[in-house]
């Protein structure tokens, strides 16, 4: 066993030795250790370097507030955790830790030279220089600044771990498993309320874990703790979550917690998530989040070996580790005496207690005397010595006039400081509660609650164990009652011989030196000194938010947990304004840094988002289709054969469709069944078109606008019965259209009698196009006469195909004879396969969305979202014919007469032909009117669709052009990086203008 481990005591398992390494050197710890306690047990204090000056730094705390002892932990295979606090990392066999932010080594770090330049590296120095010569910024200064950035090593490989999440509900959520939280949980549990008790540490117990000596109701505290935990665990209404940090307090008592499931294990099972995000909604919340000890601000307060007094006590009592053999204590608060006493009782020779206060309580003095500890009341520390570990301090009396008397040197190997305690009000503040300043304890405490919550114990400014227990019990009982349970009187607890717990807020220690010349650190990680804060104030940064942002105090990885109050106190003094007026910076989630993985949860890879697949998708996949995402769907874009590229495949698919039969999967189109006596009237209002006169068994192309008059969606609507329509929408527009229709139906026209039902996924849709389609399907269709007269273009009828019910549409988006076969989804694949089989005799060819786009463009049919972009009216795209002339109103109608909708130079859809038939324009290319434009050039439009037409043996394009229809036949220009392309404006129908091929 290493030399700084005590002979007995603590909560560690001394017999379970654990090997680990730090900086490549092997050490041994024991089960129950944190990395920090194990290092301290081996006498290692110096573990890191600070951000700006690269000063040697040690272990400051014993908890999550640590801002100095940050290390990298490498578990291999992408499991590298940067900026990990040694004080919270539990030790496991084989743990490998490395220091960070130093080169070439922790001991010899070239960055330490920054310290020499420190006089000019004061707060915000970078705003004042690096400006000349101007060209140096980009070439010299900025690269250097960016290179020196950052703290921890950047990750290099993909993390193999999985992360889980869970919603949970409870009556009472208790945050913090210290004495207040435990007492609250016991009280709430007795009422039968559903309780969740969460604590960030590996063990429930909080401050009790460092305090074996207290007696609760005549029982040793650790024995009381053990029975409390047993009692709670036995209650099935209580969920105890250890290693779980409540990081964020959101609306209506919604709290985010992260449970760490595997970071403490040597070799976790692969099914075990690394962390679990708990999203808890609680009726009532009890905050029992404790308090954080404050460091003191004096010259050299940052050397390795300088530590918070409470942390030293935790290392001693909980981990069985002496942080030094000859410590000195410096304090402005009584609680540090407990550390000194506990250490002395464990045989450590405490060199002195330097108390900044003059009137020390007689009991404490008596206690010190009994243990042979020298107390220096009314003294200060003026400086410290020791390069990689503190070796001595200089103590001096504070004279009545505030000046400092003669210095005296005291040798030491650890300096334990305490500047009082700061209640952890982070979650309370996040809940939007307001704080009030309590002068007597020198701290902010919860005042007005914005949500259903209460606070108990140290986070409420009540530091005594008895206050925590009794306050917690009362809070737990009240919470259970609030949540609707009957709770009896809460337990009252008695604590024997409780020590006093008071102090004075002295932040910056008096010194004989010029305060502008010394480095007294406030934010240890960011190397912000008291002088920096004074400089910020001097430069006019008077708001605490300004001071924080200018100096970066409180912006380190501990988010100011140990520095906020010191910063505030120094600012307040410099501004000569009371602390309460200077105010606090806002507390933000997360309470402690929380892994991205925990937030991302299972939303990775194929669970990052839904991939919707049509009933026919599996066939397309087997057939080697190349897919493209269209909203959440994936659709086959083309079906390459024999290593064809897209161009070749699309040309072949188009040709086959025009000459015989093409088959495509249109299942993703949105579909809505509109049923009820007022259906036609409803559609009249929703679409620009008129619907009243549409006959049963007929279809019509419908155009839908937003209230702003711009095209919103389109699709074919078929009338199945007088009171029943089958509406189709674009694939991507389906959810929006349904929401849009429901909105108007429910809130604008609730008097209309009809209902909307989404049937998108009820029907698989197979589109067949080409001159031979009728011949192919006629033998297999029952109940529908497919004759040209009986079932003309734009007809719909219900019947059967292959014995399966179908809604058969005669429609075409290609300009060829076309049918869309709707069959119930589960039959879709089989019907498709049959059609492919039977179609073989006609050389049927499956085509994807790309060929579809070419075929429709040859006919000048628009695609909403490609040829329109949310700024086109029906007239802009040449569809004024779709507007029902006699209709009193429809959505968007009024907007069409706004002044700008009536101007002549609106962009209008036109066809574009290049002079060279092989010249294919790029979609998105801009159109200008002059042959030699120079930037900024007046652009009069752009190419919206452009394809090679195999049928026409010519490239074709559509575009929108200012006053386009008046420019028919005109020559325009498309300037590209490789030269200017000349185009002619033509009608946007390139193929079968008369529509003869449709009506066969």
């Amino acid at each position, binding site marked *: 066993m290493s030399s700084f481990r005590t002979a007995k005591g603590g909560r560690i398992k001394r017999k379970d030795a654990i090997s680990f390494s730090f900086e490549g050197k092997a050490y041994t710890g024991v089960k129950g250790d944190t990395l920090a306690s194990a290092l301290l047990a081996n006498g290692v204090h110096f573990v890191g370097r600070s951000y700006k000056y690269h000063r040697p730094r040690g272990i400051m705390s014993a908890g999550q507030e640590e801002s100095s002892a940050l290390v990298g932990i490498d578990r291999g295979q992408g499991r590298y955790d940067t900026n990990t606090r040694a004080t919270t990392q539990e030790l496991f066999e084989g743990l490998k830790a490395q220091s960070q932010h130093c080169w070439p080594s922790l001991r010899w770090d070239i960055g330490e030279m920054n310290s020499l330049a420190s006089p000019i590296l004061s707060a915000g120095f970078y705003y004042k220089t690096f400006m000349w010569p101007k060209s140096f910024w980009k070439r010299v200064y900025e690269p250097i600044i960016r290179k020196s950035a950052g703290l921890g090593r950047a990750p290099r490989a993909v993390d193999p771990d999985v992360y889980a999440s869970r919603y949970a509900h409870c009556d009472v959520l208790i945050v913090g498993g210290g004495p207040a939280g435990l007492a609250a949980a016991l009280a709430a549990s007795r009422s039968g309320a559903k309780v969740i008790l969460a604590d960030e540490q590996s063990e429930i117990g909080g401050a009790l874990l460092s305090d074996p000596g207290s007696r609760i109701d005549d029982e040793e505290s650790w024995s009381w703790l053990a029975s409390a935990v047993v009692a709670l665990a036995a209650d099935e209404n209580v969920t105890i979550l250890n290693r779980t940090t409540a990081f964020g307090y959101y609306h*209506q008592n919604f709290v985010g917690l992260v449970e760490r499931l595997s970071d403490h294990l040597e070799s976790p099972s692969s099914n075990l998530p690394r962390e679990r995000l708990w999203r808890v909604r609680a009726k009532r919340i009890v905050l029992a989040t404790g308090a954080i000890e404050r460091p003191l601000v004096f010259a050299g307060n940052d050397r390795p070996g300088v530590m918070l007094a409470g942390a030293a006590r935790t290392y001693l009592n909980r981990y069985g580790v002496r942080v030094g053999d000859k410590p000195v204590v410096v304090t402005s608060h009584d609680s540090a005496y407990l550390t000194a006493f506990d250490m002395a009782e464990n045989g450590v020779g405490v060199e002195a207690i330097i108390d900044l206060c003059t009137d020390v309580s007689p009991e404490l003095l008596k206690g010190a005397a009994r243990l042979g500890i020298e107390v220096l009341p009314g003294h200060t520390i003026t400086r410290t010595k020791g390069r990689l570990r503190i070796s001595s301090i200089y103590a001096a009396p504070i004279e009545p006039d505030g000046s400092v008397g003669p210095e005296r040197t005291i040798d030491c190997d650890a300096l334990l400081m305490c500047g009082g305690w700061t209640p952890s009000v982070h979650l309370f503040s996040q809940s939007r509660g307001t704080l009030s300043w309590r002068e007597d304890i020198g701290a902010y405490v919860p005042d007005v609650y914005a949500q259903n919550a209460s606070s108990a114990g140290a986070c409420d400014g009540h530091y005594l164990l008895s206050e925590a227990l009794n306050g917690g019990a009362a809070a737990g009982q009240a919470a259970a009652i609030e949540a609707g349970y009957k709770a009896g009187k809460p337990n009252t607890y008695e604590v024997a011989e409780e020590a006093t717990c008071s102090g004075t807020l002295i932040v910056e220690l008096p010194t004989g030196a010029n305060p502008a010349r010394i480095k007294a650190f406030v934010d240890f990680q960011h190397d912000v000194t008291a002088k920096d804060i004074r400089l910020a104030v001097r430069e006019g940064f008077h708001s605490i938010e300004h001071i924080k942002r200018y100096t970066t105090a409180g912006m380190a990885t501990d988010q100011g947990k140990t520095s906020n109050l010191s910063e505030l106190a120094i600012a307040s003094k410099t501004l000569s304004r009371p602390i309460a007026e200077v105010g606090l910076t806002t507390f933000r989630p997360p309470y402690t840094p929380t892994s991205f993985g925990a937030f991302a949860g299972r939303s990775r890879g194929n669970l990052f988002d839904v991939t919707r697949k049509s009933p026919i998708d599996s066939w397309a996949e087997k057939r080697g289709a190349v897919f493209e995402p269209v909203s959440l769907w994936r659709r086959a874009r083309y079906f390459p054969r024999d290593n064809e590229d897209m161009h070749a495949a699309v040309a072949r698919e188009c040709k086959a469709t025009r000459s015989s039969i093409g088959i495509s999967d249109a299942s993703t189109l949105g579909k809505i069944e509109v049923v009820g006596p007022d259906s036609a009237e409803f559609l009249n209002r929703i679409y620009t078109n008129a619907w009243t006169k549409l006959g049963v068994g007929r279809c019509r192309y419908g155009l839908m606008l937003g209230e702003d008059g711009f095209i919103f969606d389109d699709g074919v609507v078929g009338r199945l019965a007088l009171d029943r329509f089958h509406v189709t929408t674009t694939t991507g527009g389906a959810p929006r259209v349904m929401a849009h229709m429901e909105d108007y139906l429910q809130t604008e026209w609730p008097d209309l009698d009809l209902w909307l039902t989404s049937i998108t996924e009820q029907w698989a849709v197979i589109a067949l196009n080409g001159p031979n389609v009728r011949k192919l399907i006629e033998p297999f269709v029952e109940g529908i006469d497919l004759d040209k007269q009986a079932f003309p273009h734009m007809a719909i009828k219900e019947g059967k195909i292959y014995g399966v019910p179908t809604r058969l549409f005669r429609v075409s988006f290609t300009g060829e004879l076309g049918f869309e076969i709707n069959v119930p989804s589960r039959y879709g694949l089989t019907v498709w396969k049959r059609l492919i089989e039977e179609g073989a005799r006609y050389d049927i060819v499956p085509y994807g969305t790309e060929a579809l786009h070419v075929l429709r463009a040859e006919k000048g049919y628009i695609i909403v979202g490609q040829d329109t972009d949310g700024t086109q009216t029906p007239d802009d795209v040449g569809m004024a014919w779709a507007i029902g002339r006699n209709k009193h109103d429809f959505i968007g*109608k009024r907007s069409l007469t706004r002044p700008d909708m009536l101007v002549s130079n609106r962009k209008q859809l036109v066809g574009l032909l290049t002079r060279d038939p092989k010249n294919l324009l790029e979609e998105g290319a801009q159109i200008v009117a002059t042959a030699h434009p120079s930037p900024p050039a007046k652009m009069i439009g752009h190419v919206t669709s452009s394809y090679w037409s195999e049928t026409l043996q010519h490239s074709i394009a559509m575009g929108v052009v200012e006053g386009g229809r008046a420019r028919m036949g005109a020559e325009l220009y498309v300037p590209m990086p490789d030269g200017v392309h000349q185009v002619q404006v033509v009608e946007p129908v390139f193929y079968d203008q008369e529509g003869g091929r449709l009506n066969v």
Partner: protein
Amino acid sequence: MLLIRCPYCEQDRAEVEFSYAGEAHIERPVDPSAFSDAEWEAFLFLRSNPRGTHFERWVHIHGCARHFNAVRDTVSDKFLMTYKAGKPRPTKREIEGAKK
């Protein structure tokens, strides 16, 4: 995550079940063509956007699928009350009453 009381389901449900649908009580005119450009602009685009009490529409899209109205404080994001679509704008007194 907001907790929203659906006046149809009569339950408090999580925000992720709902969609926001803009300010409430902006009535679409029966005859929009009678509106001047300025009046139409106001209908389309002008919203009260208050710091404080806001009357707004939500739809319980992943629940009962009904649109309804809510009164919410835009500074605290607290819902003061919710009520069914078509009901008139609640008075101050009704809102105060609903808080309890």
